[in-house]
C-alpha cells in the first residue's frame, strides 16, 4: 500500500504490456486533462516503468506486474479506456490536493 498527496503528483506514467498501443492512446487522452495542472503524462511498458513516477496507471490485470516493478509507487488500475472513474478520481485528487492511495 502506497499513497501520495495530490499536490505532490507531477509525473504520471501510463503503463501497458508493450507500451505501444493502449498506454499511448490513454496518454494522449490524459495529457489534455492533466497538463493544465502542471502534471506530465508519459507512456511505458509495464516492465520498464521509469523510476521517479509519482503515479502509475495501468489496466487492472497489470497492477501486480507494475507494483512488482515500482513497489513504493501508487499504482492505480482501470477497466475502461473511456470514462473510467479512476481518471476522474486522479484529476480530482490533483486539483483538490487529496490523498491518492492504492
Amino acid at each position, binding site marked *: 500500500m502506497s499513497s501520495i498527496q495530490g499536490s505532490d503528483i507531477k509525473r504520471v506514467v501510463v503503463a501497458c*504490456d508493450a507500451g*505501444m*498501443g493502449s498506454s499511448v492512446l490513454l496518454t*494522449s*487522452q490524459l495529457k489534455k486533462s492533466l497538463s493544465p495542472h502542471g502534471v506530465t503524462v508519459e507512456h511505458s511498458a509495464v516492465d520498464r516503468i521509469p523510476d521517479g513516477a509519482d503515479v502509475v496507471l495501468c*489496466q487492472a490485470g497489470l497492477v501486480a506486474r507494475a507494483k512488482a516493478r515500482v513497489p513504493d509507487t501508487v499504482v492505480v488500475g482501470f477497466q475502461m*479506456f*473511456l470514462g473510467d472513474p479512476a481518471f476522474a478520481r486522479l484529476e480530482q485528487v490533483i486539483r483538490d490536493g487529496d490523498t491518492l492511495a492504492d
Partner: protein
Amino acid sequence: MPTDLVLTADAVRLGRVAADRAAAIDQCGALLVELGAVEPGYVTAMHEREASVPTFVGEGVAIPHGTDAGRALVKETALAVVQFPDGVDWDGSTVYVAIGIAASGEEHLGVLSSLAGVLTDPEKAARLRSAATPADVIDLLGPDRSG
C-alpha cells in the same frame, strides 16, 4: 527523430466480415504482414496480448497489438485499420473498427493522438465506424487539428 507515421489508403480495409475476435485479429495481423511491417509470428503475439488484456478501447474500436516480447518481430512501425460494418463480438463488447498496431518506435503517436480525439468525440467516432472510403478514415486519423 523518426518520421511520423502517415496513414495511407493501403493500410485501410473497409467493409470486411469477421466471424469472431480471433478472425478479426487475424485480418489486422495479415494486413500488417502485407504492409511489410511485421514478421508473421507477430500475429501470434497479437493473440497472446488479447488473451491477457483485451484491447477494446470504447466507441466500437479495438487496437489489437503484440506483447512486449513480440516487439522483436516488428520491422517497421505501421497501423492497419480494418472496418467490420456488421460488428464483431469482442469479449462482450462490439467492435466495428479494429486498428492493428505494430510499433518499433514512437512514429505512430500522432495517429493514436488523433484516435484519442476521435474516441472522445461521439460524432467523429460514428464517422469512423461508418466510413465509406479510406479517405474518410485518413481524414479522421490524420494530423490532429483540434490542438
